């Protein structure tokens, strides 16, 4: 309410901000963390016969919880202390998730820089480079091209099928929907390797095709379809039923309603689902092991001849060869490029998916108001 007393400025109607932390709460956490760090250094490094970085931090974490519990019992009653200790434990689990992402992606970026700082690493292939060539010679061009072409083909296969399956689950339903939904969910966590074995046995062993980019794309799309279908179904279900009913009330048929109302309303969420699935698809290694084939040369045609991609490049240079330092450096260089591509796809998905179904972006609002003025 806007109270205006004489002599005072009008109070705006802003809600009172409830602070979630308190000074003594923060001080307790920080104090326990520092005390545990010092004690861990003393015990772990100096007194006890332990070694290894992982052990150090596990030891620190256990000590930290004990210290925090002791400090909490000193200040608060038992119930409050238990609640505080559990909330700190849960918060550290959240921090652990962030730490894992930063550690894995960051490590690939940091180690990969050694190779990527040579510009030729991105712009040349391994055609004229052997294992003992310096890093300034040879690169990942053929793998980048392969990854992008295979991902494009895989998306072309899995996008229509995945979204159509999601529409079936969300808009049509019926007795068939239950087994389809169960299988879709089971397939999202299916071993990636199985998709590669399937394509290998069906297309390569039974039908006699050779290993090529399109075989890899089919294998990747087997893994992408369930991911797209599952995420899209959730998004389509968020479209308000009133919009559908309004469309039906105006006399439109079901396919008109889905095509002109449901899909455009859910557009941003659908794009997010597809781009996230692409981010997963570009990093798939196991499905392409048997299907893409290996080559050191640039192959622009995904329909004939072996076509390598980034994960396979890493697999080959680090796991199969992995003899000299340059192999590892090239592998990490490819991981650098792969992580960057995944991050680009992921950020795109986040930016597009920021809005809820039906919520218009600034650009769409401008377009609508311009059309409104014209009439």
């Amino acid at each position, binding site marked *: 309410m806007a109270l205006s007393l004489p002599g005072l400025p009008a109070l705006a109607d802003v809600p009172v901000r409830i602070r979630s932390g308190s000074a003594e709460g923060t001080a307790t956490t920080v104090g326990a963390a520092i005390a545990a760090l010092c004690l861990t250094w003393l015990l772990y490094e100096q007194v006890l016969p332990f070694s*290894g970085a992982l*052990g150090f931090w596990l030891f620190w974490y256990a000590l930290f919880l004990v210290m925090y519990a002791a400090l909490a019992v000193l200040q608060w009653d038992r*119930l409050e202390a*238990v*609640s505080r200790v559990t*909330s700190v434990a*849960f*918060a*550290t*689990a*959240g921090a652990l*998730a*962030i730490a*894992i992402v930063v*550690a*894995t*992606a960051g490590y*690939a970026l940091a180690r990969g820089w050694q190779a990527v700082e040579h510009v030729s690493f991105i712009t040349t292939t391994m055609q004229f480079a052997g294992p003992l060539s310096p890093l300034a010679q040879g690169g990942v061009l053929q793998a980048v091209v392969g990854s992008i072409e295979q991902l494009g083909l895989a998306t072309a296969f899995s996008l229509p099928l995945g979204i*159509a*399956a999601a529409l079936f689950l*969300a808009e*049509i*339903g*019926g007795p*068939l929907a239950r087994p*389809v*939904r169960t*299988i*879709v969910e*089971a397939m999202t*966590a*299916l*071993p*990636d390797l*199985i998709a590669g*074995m*399937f394509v290998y*046995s*069906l297309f390569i*062993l*039974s039908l006699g095709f050779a290993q090529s980019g399109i075989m890899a794309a089919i294998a990747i799309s087997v893994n992408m*379809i*369930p991911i797209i*279908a599952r995420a899209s179904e*959730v998004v389509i279900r968020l479209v308000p039923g009133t919009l559908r009913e309004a469309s039906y009330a105006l006399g439109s*048929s*079901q*396919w008109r309603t889905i095509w002109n109302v449901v899909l455009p309303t859910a557009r941003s969420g659908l794009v997010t689902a597809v781009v996230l699935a692409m981010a*997963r698809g570009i*990093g798939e*290694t*196991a499905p392409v*092991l*048997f299907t893409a084939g290996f080559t050191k040369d640039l192959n622009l045609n995904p329909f004939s001849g072996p076509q390598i991609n980034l994960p396979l490049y*890493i697999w080959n240079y680090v796991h199969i060869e992995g003899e000299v330092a340059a192999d590892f450096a090239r592998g990490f260089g490819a*991981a650098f490029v*792969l*992580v960057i591509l995944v991050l680009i*796809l*992921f950020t795109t998905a986040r930016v597009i998916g920021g809005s809820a179904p039906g919520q218009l972006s600034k650009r769409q609002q401008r377009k609508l108001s311009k059309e409104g003025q014209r009439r």
Partner: protein
Amino acid sequence: MSAAATGVSAVLTHDDAPRPIYYRPSSSDRIFRGLLRGAGISVLVITGAILLFLILQSLPAWRAEGFRILTTAALLYGSKDFGVAALLPDSIAIAVIALAIAVPAGLAAAIYISEYAPPGMRRVLIAVIDLLAAVPSIVFALWGFEFLMPRVLGTDSWLAQHLGFIPIFHFRLPYTEQNFVGSTFIAGIVVAMMVMPIIISLCRQVFSQAPQGEREAAYALGATRWGMVRTVVLPFGRSGIIGSAMLGMGRALGETVAVSFILVPNSTFNYHVLESGGNSITDEIATHVFDFGSDGISYLFAAGLVLFAMTLIINSLAAIVINRSRSGASTGAD
């Protein structure tokens, strides 16, 4: 309505039934519905085709060995002495180690995200979990092999020295670095990180559906935040937790690349998980698929079939458990 016209008698005769509705879709609708239904069925067809072709390719192996493939613990290709019993226990051991780490950690992170985190932090964490799911498995493999493994060895040797009385941590080899490298235990740790996003995102969704009324009731009775989580959120999400752990199990069993990078190959199952050496169905297939010609490959497909059947059953059960835990609104009341 006749009820209004005839008054009380209509209530007694119960003629207030809804009129039957006939719905005749137009031909374009019928085609459209057929297309969508076809897309739905195609998912079933793909799964069926995977099963069919794994069976077809592995027929020679089943013919030669019969069901002894399931019980033989040796990996001699084409010599009537091959079975997944040498591979499956290690696959399961890796998955169990991974779950033993990922379930508690993932559960705690999910509780933090859905119950404790301030809104801004929650958005960041949800994005981070999605990103964690999108980090390629080969990047995890590189990280686990080059970064994590050297840093785990000290903990390994501590476990062997002080918890060696527990059979699985018993260590029979000399305590050198070489004997700790590439163990089932280290592979399990790396796979745990890859399973975590599945567990976190599923548990988070289930927890956030815990009814608001019961939460407020718990607070009104004087519960602390933890008391509310323990008495309302966790019991409500129990089947979701079980389902997500099962889905994580399926994912862990099927992990290929990270396991291949870490493990030092070994042809027999060794339940001393800290000792160097191990194998898994996925690693065996990925490493040897081009090695043994058409005879050997049918054995690998037999192993793949066992893996596929196992994960499909585990994942389907998990999907059923999870769907049962959700309210009808989110999955449709069909």
